[in-house]
């Protein structure tokens, strides 16, 4: 069934969109990532204009992360205090990110920089997570079972300390705010929730327990992507609500299924699968940059 999207001004298959939404929703619920880093490139691929894909994806992530976060709230696996601190950084970052996006678009290099940052971020994070979770699995198999040690790093040395009871942490608010800012910038530029950055940052940088990380990241993503949606809707008019509705019908259902799968899997397994997925997307994007494209020319909106 073909459906015409009023803002994107293209006609696409409705079931294809529902399916894509569902697939990405499952991943969203399982890993606490918004799934935007998968969905946005997929939308480009089926012919949605990039500007519309980025803005609409932000709106869709609001729905899937809200649904996912509710499930986590009920199980009390959300650190609301940590989420709020991350959110403060996230809102600042999103505002900065939209400025940066507009500046780069003027230079005509926004596509390259988005892709490059995808490759770099996904490569580093995917690689680190993969090695780390392999080690964790090997450790648990060998039976020595060393308990996770709380390292006293930078997060403990900086001022403005705060107690995060749910996470069992007493650390400075500066690192979480900085993480939030980075994620906010990425949300605005790449049309992603930023979970793929935030989840590892929370585990490795802040030392939060894995179970709490997913819910907390979803909680923060709701507000940052919501803010980004509003910014895009009011400045670029690129949020396509029909596209968003189709994606989120599939997405919210998928997220519920994903959350349930996630609770049944071991944390290490969860992490290694996320790492594999991140590396796969990274590899695909890197190939696009390295191999000679079949069409060397591209069209953009003129008149700037």
């Amino acid at each position, binding site marked *: *069934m*073909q*459906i*015409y999207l*009023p*803002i994107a*001004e*293209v*006609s696409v298959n409705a079931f294809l969109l529902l399916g894509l939404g569902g697939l990405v929703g499952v991943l969203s619920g399982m890993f606490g990532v918004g799934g935007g880093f998968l969905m946005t490139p997929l939308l480009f691929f089926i*012919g949605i204009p990039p500007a519309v894909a980025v803005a609409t994806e932000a*709106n*869709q992530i*609001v*729905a*899937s*992360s*809200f*649904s*996912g976060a*509710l*499930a986590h709230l*009920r199980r009390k696996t959300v650190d609301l205090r940590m989420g709020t601190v991350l959110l403060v950084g996230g809102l600042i970052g999103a505002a900065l990110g939209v400025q940066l996006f507009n500046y780069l678009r003027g230079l*005509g*290099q926004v*596509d*390259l920089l988005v892709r*490059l940052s995808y490759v770099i971020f996904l490569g580093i994070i995917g690689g680190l997570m993969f090695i780390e979770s392999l080690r964790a699995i090997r450790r648990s198999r060998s039976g020595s079972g060393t308990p996770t040690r709380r390292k006293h790093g930078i997060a403990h040395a900086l001022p403005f300390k705060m107690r995060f009871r749910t996470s069992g942490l007493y650390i400075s608010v500066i690192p979480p705010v900085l993480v939030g800012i980075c994620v906010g910038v990425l949300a605005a530029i790449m049309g992603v929730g930023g979970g793929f950055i935030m989840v590892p940052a929370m585990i490795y940088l802040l030392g939060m327990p894995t179970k709490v990380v997913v819910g907390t990241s979803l909680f923060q993503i709701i507000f940052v992507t*919501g803010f980004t*949606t*509003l910014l*895009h*809707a*009011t400045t670029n*008019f690129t*949020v396509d*609500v*029909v596209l*968003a*509705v189709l994606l*989120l*019908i599939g997405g*919210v*259902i998928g*997220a*519920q299924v994903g959350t349930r799968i996630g609770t049944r899997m071991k944390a290490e397994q969860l992490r290694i699968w996320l790492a594999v997925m991140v590396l796969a997307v990274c590899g695909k994007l890197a190939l696009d*940059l*390295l*191999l*000679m*494209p079949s*069409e*060397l*020319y*591209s*069209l*953009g*909106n*003129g*008149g*700037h």
Partner: protein
Amino acid sequence: MIRAALFLLVLALPAAAEEVIAGLSQNRVSITTSFDGSEILIFGAVKREAPIAPESPLHVIITVSGPSEPVTVRRKERRFGIWINTDAVEIDAAPTFYAVATSGPWEEVISDVEDLRNKVSIPRAIRSVGLGVTEGADFVEALIRIRTRQNRYQLQMGAVEVRESTLFRTSIALPANLTEGDYVARFLLTRGGEVLDIYETEIDVRKVGLERFLFNLAHNQPLVYGLMSLAIAIAAGWSASAVFRLIRF
């Protein structure tokens, strides 16, 4: 060549009394939610006072063009091992949709001079003033190639059916990725490459119903539209969560 053209011009003059009368199967294209492209049937007849001039066959060219917009064409080059956009060319105005249908091979239907004057062929319909001839040509060619692949630019030689040098018909397929606006259908009557008569009519391409409402809302009240999108997202997220809880417990 010039002599031949002049000769044809002289020959064509007495036939100037030939006029086009044309019609479309529809003067409006409504873009609804289920819009999946549209096919417009174009037909017409040649009105003439004098008997048919026998020298050269009558030809009909039909063009349909969408609203023109400026376009930036960028070219990728390999730098530091990766492919990045380097050169860019700004094209002043390129139609968002352009279809040309003719009743015969290009060289027979219209002369180069007439094509230049009336901007009939696809490259001529694109306005690119101040481009370097060699450099710019590559970019314009790329624009045509990309849009042709998207079915936005169509060249259909021999697609116009002419009967008894009087009646003609063709159909033009409008793709699903149509831009809203006033489309112009042009009919050119030619003989020996010279244009005898031109007739123009408009096709109104508009979004209607829900499409219209959402488009207007997004542009006139973006804040309301943005909040509505968010509200829908939150409601969907919450209801899915509630439904799944009902199923589980």
